[in-house]
Structure formats: C-alpha cells, structure tokens
C-alpha cells in the first residue's frame, strides 16, 4: 500500500510539476500575446469628432496576407505597415501615408471553408448599447463586444437577414467627412432581400434617416443617412438569386472602373459585376481579390461633385 501510495504521490508530483510548467508557459504566452497585440488607432492624431452611422474602418480577412498586399498594392498603390500580433498577421494599408484599412490573416484552423471578406465597421458611441439594440431587433452577435487597445470597443453582428457588419466606438475619434480620393473607400452598399425591413433595423441601431432614392429598375434603393450625409445604400438582391447571401459591400473610388477591373484581373482577381454606369452617373464594378474577397470599384469624378453641389 505504501509503495502504491508513494508511486501515486510521485506521479502526482510529476504531473503537477509539468502542469505547473505548462500553465506558467501558457500564462506567459497569453500575457505576451496580449502585450504584442497592437492595432493602430482609427484617427491619428486623435480627435473628438464622432459620426455615428458612418463607415469608419474596414478590415480584410484573408488567408494570404502577402498575396493580398501584392494585389491591393498593385491595384490602388497602397503601401502597408505591419503590426505585430501573435497567432495572426495584420497590416494597415496606407494611401499617401493615410490609413485606408486593415488586412488580417487569421490563424484559422485548416480544413474549413472560409469566405475572405472585407468587414465593415460602422461608428457607434456605445458598443454595448448597440449590442442591446441589435439583439432587440433580431441581430446575432458574432463577436464581442470587446475592447481593443488603441482602437476602441467593437463587436461583430449579423443583421436580421444575416449580413455581417461590425460596430466600433473609436477611442481616437472618427475620421472627418471629406471627399474620398481615388484609392480610398467612397461608398458602402447593403444588399439584402427586404431593404425596407433591414433599413429599419439599421435605423434603430444608428439613428439613420432612411430615404427612398429614385429607381428605374423597380428594385428598392434606400439611402441611409446620418449627419445629413449619405452613408450607405440598402438595395434589393434579385429575387431569383438563391445563392446570394445578404451582405455589405464597400467601394473604392477609382478614376476608371473598367481600367481598374482589368487591372484587378491582371493581378489575379475576378470580375463579379461588369463595369456599368450607376445612378450617380459614374461607372461601378464589383471584383474579387485573388482569395475571393469581393469589393466594389466606383468612379466619382470632380464634375459629379460640382454637379451635386449646385
């Protein structure tokens, strides 16, 4: 009995020691990871501006950060700043030194189908209040709310139709309103089955004013507005589109959508929606990057702005 007891004791001691070592190691690693997770502020230097309902950030979730850098750098002239992180790779895309978004290669488990996509971050003043409102109006919480050092507090939701978006209370303020330069994000569109119902959800969440825009195609086209600026549109997916999922899509301003789409193809991307004239008079196209993440290209000429300002 004594021998058994001694043996058990020795084993327990060894196991305990090993576990202690493992836990200490994991603990140190977690601490190191938390310390090494560094994301840039949305606005630098920080400001006190806030624009609830404005799309203030986008993050690309991609399986190949290096390939994404090559593609977007070649297409828009973006440059990249790498940010140290553990378990994932993250870079901030810059245009003329100004941040235009983030690129993240998550450390995803292998063997699972993933849809690379640009995640749309919409400004809120209180993420937790936004979560309560979102849940009360039929959304699902996919992540958070969680605080991210230097960036703010954020959460990821799926709206009542399943379109995925994020909310962010930026701790450095929101970017000011100005006309996007070519290579910057200029517009965001929500494509859903019932734009009116879904727009009501976003109205409840962000206090949008929802305006019905003229439509010659018979499909609903609603403008979501805050601060008296158009922030996004809510549009109907074609009824016959069984394989289309409600989603947000962001558009980069380009000088020539056809040229940009052709360049995207030459860089390994695909054209999803051919360049065509949209309601603002400029052309738009939808393309996918080499990993399959969709995004839009939108022309907006100076004359468009001057015309609008009249």
């Amino acid at each position: 009995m004594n021998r058994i007891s001694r043996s058990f004791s020795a084993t327990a001691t060894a196991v305990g020691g090993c576990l202690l070592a493992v836990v200490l190691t994991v603990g140190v690693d977690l601490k190191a990871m938390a310390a090494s997770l560094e994301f840039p502020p949305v606005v630098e230097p920080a400001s006190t501006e806030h624009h609830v309902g404005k799309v203030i950030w986008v993050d690309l979730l991609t399986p190949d950060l290096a390939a994404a850098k090559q593609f977007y750098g070649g297409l828009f002239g973006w440059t990249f700043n790498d940010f140290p992180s553990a378990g994932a790779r993250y870079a901030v895309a810059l245009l003329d030194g100004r941040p235009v978004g983030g690129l993240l290669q998550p450390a995803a488990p292998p063997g699972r189908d993933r849809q690379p996509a640009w995640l749309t971050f919409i400004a809120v003043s209180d993420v937790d209040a936004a979560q309560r409102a979102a849940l009360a109006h039929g959304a699902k919480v996919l992540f958070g709310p969680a605080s991210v050092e230097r960036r703010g507090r954020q959460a990821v939701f799926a709206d009542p139709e399943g379109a995925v978006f994020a909310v962010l209370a930026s701790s450095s303020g929101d970017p000011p309103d100005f006309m996007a330069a070519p290579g910057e994000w200029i517009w965001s569109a929500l494509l859903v089955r019932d734009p009116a119902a879904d727009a009501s959800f976003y109205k409840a969440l962000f206090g949008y004013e929802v305006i019905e825009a003229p439509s010659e195609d018979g499909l609903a086209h609603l403008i979501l507005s805050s601060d008296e600026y158009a922030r996004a549109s809510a549009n109907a997916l074609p009824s016959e589109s069984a394989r289309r999922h409600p989603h947000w899509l962001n558009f980069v301003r380009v000088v020539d959508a056809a040229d940009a789409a052709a360049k995207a193809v030459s860089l390994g991307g695909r054209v999803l929606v051919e360049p065509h004239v949209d309601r603002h008079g400029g052309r738009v196209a939808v393309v996918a990057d080499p990993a399959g993440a969709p995004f839009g290209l939108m022309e907006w000429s100076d004359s468009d702005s001057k015309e609008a300002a009249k």
Partner: protein
Amino acid sequence: MSPRARRAGLSALGLLLLTGLSSCALTWGGYDGDVGLAFGGGYYQPYGYDYGGWGPGYHVGPGRGGPVRGGGPGNFRAASRQAPSIPNGSRGGSRGRR
C-alpha cells in the same frame, strides 16, 4: 508537515492545475480559435455564396443628391427636399455640402 499531508497537498495542487488548464483551454481561442480574444478577427461571412452574376440592374450608387421620390416603403422620409450626397468637402478644408 507530515509526508502524508505533503502528498495530499501535491495531489490537490495537481488537480487544481489540471482544472485550471482545462478551463484555460476551454476559454482561450476567442472567435474561430485565433487571436479573437482581443480582436475578433475570425472569418464571418458564410462560405459558398455568389457575389456576382448580376445583369445591368446592379445599381447601388449614392446618387447625386437630387430630389427623392415620395412615399417611401415604410416610415421613411418623403420627397420634400434634396436627397443627401456623400461628403464632398476637401480634406482638411471646409465641410462639404450636406
């Protein structure tokens, strides 16, 4: 401390560590098992859907701030004035037309 008490203490410590480690394994990983603990950078869009294949009806642009049509599909604003435009002021300059 007697040897028996010391052995019991060590065993208890092992059990405690095992419990702690299990708890750590269950809670660590965040969304999709990556650094989601702090960032939430998992893949969120469902896979296998089509984002293209549209005909000429793909009109999602902002418009130019022209007049809007009345009687929206719900309790939305009717056409009493111009629809809002996207921000069009210059960077660092005056606020653009609303």
